[in-house]
């Protein structure tokens, strides 16, 4: 694995990163770079597709916010041949979501170079606006300085998003080019690593001098993952406890209004049109009455829990745990928590890890006539059941 270090002046990571992005954009075969930037309006950070190196001044991959999972954007950019190659700067969960979409034939990997940055986490969208809305100056550098020095990341009483606190994938292992922060002396240096042949050919054109990975890095990553895993397991336990019966599950989703925002925000929910907005769920008026008759009263809208369970059924094998669903919920339902808890078990059941590698086959895609042992539905319910009941 080719490894290099680029210099950082006065601990100003952003400038160093921007310079590095410019050098990438200068490369002959890279036509554009997709990178999160501060937009002039309202201080928000959004993915931008940049072709002019000068336009990279606001780029900020370290800002602790991502209003949407950019995998969806990359999927849109790559669904059909573009005729040019672009670099995309993504968080690890975005890379993993994109890998899933490629496997689902919703994007193509041929024309992109994935640039991943060690992820320090993010706040919920609303929280971030609350924090930065009141702040003068450069919040990002305050954040990363605190984050990299191991301080508690609470600002204005707002904590990192639960999805990030429970994320055991802070390092973009699937990237072609990795930009490393953990275990690196970020006051002076950034780590650049080419992790794939594609990454290596880009690396070779970048006028970098080879170096070694800092020996502290593995330890730093390990301890971070350890901390996150502990949080995650506690979250799983609590979520399982809160959903281990149909009644509790109903309570869990009591506030759901079928706005379907979570599915719109979900990077791996790739259907053109969700089955829940098609005629399938457009029940006859007499049907509602019949249901009401049966029990005396029914909650409206109907099919709320059914919707979530169906979405889990369809997507839990591909869930990367980015937390955008929770982010998107107008009623603050902890959607991610349940999704992750179930996904963890389903993915384990199939020995599959969403987004880990483009080489792994999607579970369930191979079915043979003589293979009746593991029926598709059976295996899925197995996963859900164990997730819901908390049994292994």
């Amino acid at each position, binding site marked *: 694995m080719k490894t290099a270090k680029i210099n950082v002046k006065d601990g100003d990571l952003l400038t160093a990163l921007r310079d590095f992005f410019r050098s990438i954009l200068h490369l002959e075969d890279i036509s554009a770079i997709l990178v999160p930037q501060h937009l002039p309006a309202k201080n928000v950070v959004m993915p931008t597709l940049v072709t002019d190196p000068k336009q990279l001044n606001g780029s900020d991959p370290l800002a602790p916010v991502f209003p949407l999972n950019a995998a969806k954007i990359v999927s849109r950019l790559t669904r059909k041949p573009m005729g040019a190659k672009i670099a995309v700067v993504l968080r690890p969960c975005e890379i993993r979501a994109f890998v899933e979409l490629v496997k689902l034939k919703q994007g193509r990997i041929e024309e992109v170079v994935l640039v991943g940055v060690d992820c320090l986490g993010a706040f919920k969208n609303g929280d971030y606006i609350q924090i930065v809305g009141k702040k003068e100056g450069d919040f990002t550098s305050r954040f990363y300085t605190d984050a990299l020095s191991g301080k508690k990341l609470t600002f204005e009483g707002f904590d990192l998003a639960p999805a990030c606190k429970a994320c055991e994938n802070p390092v973009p292992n699937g990237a072609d080019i990795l930009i490393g922060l953990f275990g690196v002396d970020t006051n002076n240096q950034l780590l650049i690593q080419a992790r794939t042949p594609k990454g290596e050919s880009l690396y070779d054109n970048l006028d970098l001098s080879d170096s070694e990975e800092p020996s502290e890095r593995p330890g730093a990553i390990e301890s971070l993952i350890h901390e996150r895993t502990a949080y995650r397991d506690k979250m799983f336990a609590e979520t399982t406890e809160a959903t281990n019966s149909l009644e509790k599950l109903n309570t869990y989703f009591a506030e759901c209004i079928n706005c379907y925002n979570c599915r719109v925000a979900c990077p791996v929910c790739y259907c*053109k049109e969700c*089955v829940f907005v098609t*005629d*399938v769920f457009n029940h006859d008026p007499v049907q509602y009455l019949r249901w009401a008759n049966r029990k005396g009263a029914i909650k409206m809208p109907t099919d709320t829990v059914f919707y979530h369970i169906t979405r889990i059924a369809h997507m839990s094998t591909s869930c990367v745990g980015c937390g955008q669903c929770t982010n998107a919920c107008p009623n603050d339902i902890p959607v991610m928590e349940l999704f992750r808890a179930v996904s963890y078990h389903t993915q384990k059941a199939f020995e599959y890890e969403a987004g880990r590698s483009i080489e792994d086959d999607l579970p369930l*895609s191979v*079915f043979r*006539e*003589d293979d*009746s042992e593991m029926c598709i539905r059976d295996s899925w319910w197995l996963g859900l059941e164990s997730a819901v009941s908390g049994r292994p």
Partner: protein
Amino acid sequence: MYKRQLVVGAGISGIRAALDLAEFGYGVTLVDRSPHIGGVLSQLDYQFPTDRCGMCKMLPMVNRDASSQYCLRKGLFHENIEIRLSTELVSVEGEPGNFQVSLRGQPNLVDPARCIGCGECVKVCPVEVPDSFNAGLSGRKAVYLPVPHAIPNAYIIDTNACSRCGECEAICPTGAIKLLEEVRKNFRILVVDDELIMRDSLKAWLEDEGFAVDIAASGPEAMNHLSKQAYELMLADIKMPGMDGVELLQKAKEIFPDLSVVMMTAYATVETAVEAMKIGAMDYLLKPFDPDTLIPMIIRIYQDLEASKESPMEVGALVLCAGTSYFDPSGGNNTYGYGIYPNVVTSLEFERILSGTGPNKGRLVRLSDNKPLRKVAWLQCVGSRDIQIDADYCSSICCMHAIKEALVAKERAGGALETAIFYMDMRTFGKSFQRYRDQAEIEHSVRFEKGRVHSILHDENSGDLIIRHVDYSGACIEEIFDMVVLSVGQRPALGTTALAELVEMPLNQWGFGQTEPFSPTRINKEGIVLGGSFSGLKDISESVIQASAAALSASRVIHAAGGSLSPEITPADSFPDISQEPPKVMIAVCTCGDLLLKLLDTEQLIRCLKTDPAVDQVAFLEQTCTVTGWENLFELVEKHKPNRILIGSCLPYVFTQKIKELGQRVGLNPVLIEVVDLMLMAQSSKLKAETPSADEISKINSELLAVLGTGLARLKWADPNPVPSEKILQQALVVGGGIAGMFSALAIADHGFQVDLIEKEEILGGNLNWLQRTLEGHPTKTLLEETVIRVEKHPLINVHTHSQVLSSYGQVGRFYSTIENNEKGAVTLEHGVTILATGGAEADTTSYNYGSSEAIVTQKELERKIHDDTIDPNRLGSIVMIQCVDSRQEPRNYCSRICCTTALKHALNIKEKNPEINVYILYRDLMTYGFTESYYTQARKAGVIFIQYDLAEKPQVTPMDGSVRVTAVEPIIGQKIRIDADLVVLATGIVPKLPRDLAESFGATLDPDGFFEEAESKWRPVDSLKEGIFACGLAHSPRNITESIATAEAAAQRALRILSYERIPAGKVVAEVRHSLCNLCERCIEACPYGARVVDPDLEKVLVNAAMCQGCGSCATVCPNSASTLAGFLDQQMFEVIDSALEGTYS
């Protein structure tokens, strides 16, 4: 017009043959002497290698809607198949293509149309007998269900066991049981005997059976009776004073030539009785007799006479699939104590013990004392390979059966079971068998003990069994087992001899059907063919292959006799288009007499049903199963003109044909008529009180509502659009001009379809060009010459020699294949089906120093060299043959099936030419399966020395000056031996010749060894998973000439099923794509097991080939947003069905 075909025996091969013929368009009558279909398979729940059943995979794949898609173990419902159970063939007249056959059915004392399966009769029946379904391990009553799972599953009465007490008749709620049939009263019998006691007891016995009986004390008195009254049968005593029986017979016959007479005689006058038969008596009874011998005989005569009154059935050909039966180990020298020690069971009994419907409900415990099984032994070759009991043959199936049972038992026991199989040779000669065995041994630690166990000792106290066996060192080992399973061999089926006599077919020396040389199905009599194991011992897959081949032979008979070729497809009835009308449903509930009305609140029911605006009418009808009831329904429909009809009654399966008729009469597409089973609900409600309480009524009401509601939901969404169909190009491509390719080409061309036959070499014939004769001594040259001439002269066969297929694509009905000829260059052929007959060859080897000496040759070279005299057995002193060269070990871990018999063939041939020569055969397990076992015995007798070797210590071959030194370890004496041989012959086995990329371009897949991979190894053995592609011969698997021909004819039969249609209709249940919702994620394409889906890159759409789609629903399951749907299983429809079903459980 299509001739009806008769299939005798409804076991697995009978079903296969019947389905093949029915799919072809023939009407088929399928008869079986037992009261259920499925033969022995109805008792076997698990099949290797999947260790499951899978019989349903035989259901029709094209024109699926002609057959109900039910579990085949439960029932077979095909519009072209008429099933007659408890029925035997009694006579065959006429000629090929034009037979008249009579059948004799056991009258059923329970009317299946009225039996509702409530089981009340069983509760009152006082007679208990061993249950043959559970191999006698459990008991049953005289009235019983023949199998636990059949549909419809009417009770039947075992007339031999029934005491005619009448209890069941009295309790039957539907009056389905009639113990004494009225018709027997019309059968008058005259008993003539001078002894009073004889007359009286005969009268009493016969009247008990329901016959009308008169008696006469003398000849003149009898004549007097005859003149006054018509009689069907006369029983006449021979020795009577005055006019004796013979005189009476003569006189009576003069006046009443049609009268049937049975003589009664004492031993002393047997000769007179025989004489009497010459002048017209039909049989005689030997005195003294008891009711047990008399009654069955009279009933048989009665049934025969009744059957002869029916006009014989006209059939084109007969397919005899009468199967085999199992050896009964309790006879003879019962050294295993079967029937004496309770824990010695047969393999069939063990199968029942494993079964959930068995005597133990599948619990793995001993029947004798409920002790859980921890250690079980299987003893092989019980009743097989035993000359002492006239079984010098191998039963072929028991080895794999034992391994399977051991594995299933182990799985059932969760591993806590020790298993040992005691065997002589483990005959793993079939496809994938060897790996299955290795897996059993290595992964599942099934123990294989070579050696035959002579007897079993029994510990009276514990019930345990002690087995003493000898290992190679000669040490005697005693081992204790909880249970011992005897792997019983095969015997000719009961009644084989009678059947053979009836159709005048020859049997082989062991009593099995004898087919003509090189034909797996034909006997010496044209128009009568054999299927399945009736002609020898076969496992399921071979039986299925043979059955298809038999179907082909039968169909050929019709063709020869001028039968039509392409089925007449009745044009689809056109019905008024109602797709734009809102549903207007009429619900007709059959009250089954007044049974249901007692349980129901009809007012409430109507009110609830009518809450659904789709429901227009709710009517209650009496007995829709009767003609009157049905007419009432018809009138109601006429009156109210609904556009959908829901019928609630019993046994929906019997309504298929009626619905069609009703639809045609009232102008409603039959898919808009639905029948739901109310009887099941009425029975399961367990409510039998005369006056149910209000609570109970309301409970039943809601259950009924749920059942009707589900039907209503399905019906509301029913789609009356015509089913799609695919056009078929009625031409075939056969790749490979060996014996298999030629036979399949001929079979197809003989049915009137054009065939392109592609052969790589300059001449046709493949391996037959070097083979000389078979083990049995039949010359192969004649076969080859005759076949080549027939192929070359056939106007419908285009032979392309020197040609190869470069590539192929397309789907069933239309394939495009590019053929390259050495001279003429490439051309593209279009065809509707493809048969791969690319053959195989003797494998190359470098083992055993092959190539280093002229004295080391292969079996193929030996055959050639003996033929052209380059090898002269008279000049050789000793020959060593080494079997399994590179075979039965990874990477070629399969048995080539023919090498052992080839070695025997050559050894016997050489010994015949030079009896002084020493022939040594070094082998691992001698695979002389089936009747080839007798050649093994012959070879031993001829003095051939057999030396077994182990993979761990293979023989060593060293070329020396003028000879070859072979050393090996002889396991019996445990010593190294050395043979200086003049010739070493290597059996290198068979490798297939179909290149993997070519197979893939056809859409076929190959197994790890490069042989064709079947859609399902047992049930669809010559089909590819991709419809329209078939394989036969060595491309399929190693096999001998006759077995290759069987696959060739089977493949042709499977292909003809498609070719005979101009368009093949898809099934009602076919997947569709809603393109507006589709994201093109292609998960459905990966999921489709039949390759019926492709993505069209230009249209950017996923397309479904309706004929290839089998409606399995895999695509719909993987599609997240129901862009892929299954007709008849739409989401909304399913939701409503589930919802209605819940209705019953919620309230």
